[in-house]
Each structure stands twice: as C-alpha cells, then as structure tokens.
C-alpha cells in the first residue's frame, strides 16, 4: 500500500510540475501558436499524470472506470480543441512571430523603396 502511495504522489507531483510549466509558458512564450503548445502540455501530459496518480488511489470499482472515462475523454477532446483553435486562429489571419517579423521587414523595405522612388 505504501509503495502505491509513494508512486501516486510522485505521479501527482510530476503532473503538477508540467501543469505549472504550461501555465508559465502561457505568459512567457512570444506568439499565440507557441502559447497553444504550452497550454496543450497542461491538457495532455499533466492530465495523464494526475489522473494516473488518482487511479492508484482507487480500489478497482466504479470510480476507476469513471476516472478512465475522464482520462479517455480529455485525451480525445483537448488536443482536438487545441488543434481547432489553432486552425481557426490561422484562418483568422494570425501570424507566427517569425512571419510577422518578416512582414514588418517587407513593409519597411517597401516604405524605403517608395521613399527612394520619390
């Protein structure tokens, strides 16, 4: 029993670590698409680890099945949601950091050319 508790604590703590790193990434990453990456870490690996940690606390009854259901469900839906969101953002015209830098550069060059032409 004790071993199970220790393993479960380790799983929970690792899950929390990933959750934190994702949440920090939500603020620290430079553009939207990298931030999606950070957020989807908390939705995938952190969820797996925390629910696995809780699974070790159950005694193979209905709750185990429910936890498995939650895990399976989140595993299907959250990557889909991240994907669909990123796709919508792309269609809505959002650019990655590299692209927006390039765009700015091009605009600058055009401005300079216009000035030179004048």
């Amino acid at each position, binding site marked *: 029993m004790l071993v199970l508790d220790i393993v479960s604590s380790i799983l929970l703590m690792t899950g929390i670590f990933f959750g934190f790193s994702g949440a920090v990434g939500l603020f620290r990453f430079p553009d939207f698409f990298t931030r999606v990456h950070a957020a989807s870490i908390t939705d995938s690996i952190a969820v797996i680890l925390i629910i696995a940690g809780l699974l070790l606390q159950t005694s193979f009854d209905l709750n185990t099945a429910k936890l498995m259901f939650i895990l399976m*469900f989140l595993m*299907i839906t959250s990557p*889909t949601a991240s994907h*669909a969101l990123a796709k919508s953002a792309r269609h809505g015209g959002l650019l990655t950091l590299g692209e927006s830098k390039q765009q700015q550069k091009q605009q600058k060059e055009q401005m300079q050319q216009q000035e030179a032409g004048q």
Partner: protein
Amino acid sequence: MAVLIDLVLLSMLAITALRVIFLKDLFAVVMLFGIYSLLSALIFVNLDAVDVAFTEAAVGAGISTVLMLSTLALTGRTEKENKRSSVLPLLVVIATGAALIYGTLDMPPFGAADNPIHQHVAPRYIEESPKEVGLPNLVTSVLASYRGFDTFGETVVVFSAMVGVLSLLGAARRRENSDDAAVIVAGFKGHKVLRVVAKLIIPLIILFALYVQFHGDFGPGGGFQAGVIAAAAFILYALVFSLSHAMQVVSPKFLQLLASLGVLLYASVGIYSMLKGGHFLDYNKLAADPLVGQHFGILIIELGVGIAVFAVMLSIFYAFAHQVERSTIK
C-alpha cells in the same frame, strides 16, 4: 482546507465579476461568464451541494454560453456607449446594497447547528426519508417526492420559457430548399478532425446523459441534468454538422411535442394517483407497497422532467440558431 479553497474561489469569482463589468468587448464578457459559472459550480462542489453543482455545470457553463454566443452573432460584439450619467444608478445600488448588508446582520451565524433552516423540515426529511421514500440520494427524494409540487412548477416554468422564446424568435422550421442547405453545410467543412471527433463523442455524451437520468436515485443527477446533457449532445451535432442536419434527426415540431409530453407525463402521474384514491402526486398509491410506489413515481416523473428539459433546451437553441443562419444567409 475547505475554508481556504472557498476563500480562493470566492476571490477569483469576485475578480471575474469585476472584470466583466468593465469590459466593453461582449465576446470577452461571454468567455468570462463561462469562467464565472465554472467557479460558482466549484464553490457548490466545495459546499458539498453536488446536485446543484451538476446543474450549474451543465446549464451555466454549457448551454448558456452557447445561447449567449448565438445572441452575440445576432446583435454584434461591442457594447453601446452609454452617455447618461451613472450617478443616480450608483446611488440606488449603494442604497440597496447597504440595506441588504444591514439585513444580513439579523441573520443567524453561518453554519451554526441551531439555525432555523436546520430546525424546520430538514430533520424530518433526513430521519424519515429512508423509511418513507427509500432512496439513497436524499436530494432526489426531497426534490421529486416531498417537494413534487415545486418540481412540477419548475418543469412548467421551463416549458413556458420555451413558449416565450418561440413566440419572440419564431419557431425554427426545417428547411425545404436544398440550395440554402448547401450554404449552411459549408460552415465547418474545414475542420475535418472536429467532425471525426464529434462523431466519437456524441454517443458517449448521450450514454452519460442516460446514466445521469437513471442513476439520479443513487448519486448526483436526475431529470434536469440529464435533459440538459442530452440536449448538449444534439447541440454539438448541430454546431459541427450544421443545423439542418440536426433538424433532420430531431425536427423542431417533434421537439415541441416532446416538451408537452414531458410535462404531461409528470402531471399524469399526479392524476393517476388521484384516481387511485390518493392526493395529487401521492406516489404511495401507485403500487401495493408504498415504497415501490414511491420508486415508480420518482422514476416516471424524473423521466418526464428529463424529456421536457431536453426538448425545451434544444428547441430554444434551434430558435436562436435558426435566426443566426437566416441573418447570415442574406
């Protein structure tokens, strides 16, 4: 520990509410309202009010977000500039708030065991309901049996909400013209992943709704929650595969029939028990053994509530979505 969690949740709730007031972008307001209802449901969980949290989760975070978004699609995204001075409203609000706070000074201390609320009918319900109703979930036995009248009233209120919305927005009709349908189908074609995943998810949601419906006697859940969850499954279908597809599965006319059927099913249990010689909604008369009768009665009225709520929620969504599509096709 529970107090600490409560404090954190309540402060997050207050911050969210304040932010909602000062935001001008209504889309952001809708998003924050989603968080607001998630937070209030968490507070209910923390207070151990599992059934209430269930309803708040299903209605507040799910259906109302969808409905508010469709309203936004109809009306536009930014709040109108308010030119009038806000001094008088502020004074009124401050006066009312002060009166309310003054009123709470007379209230008994929070959570004390000898509060009037714990003295009135609660002890009787807690002591007698295992003998009289025999359900493990006390909330269901209070809601469906002791307070069967109130629940009937609530179901009628939900039904009349549907009547109100439909008479304001106009009932959605199934579209006969196939050209229009083609325009609508184009909506989510780009999201292939979403379509596949939705196909996987929808049966699971309906299965879970049935579990909530029939497990309400033993755990949290019941007709209200199950109806909302089942409606959410169909709303997901309509969102991903277009409204006209969803209307081919469940037509708006059929939903109106279902809504009335649900309310009538509830009422008919009452009438039947009167015919059997009892009072209105007296489940004891439904079978030879009063406990079995209670069980039957609760099962049937929960089913009635579930059907009515499902039909009402879905047809309100249809009415909104129909308006949205009509306004964008033009």
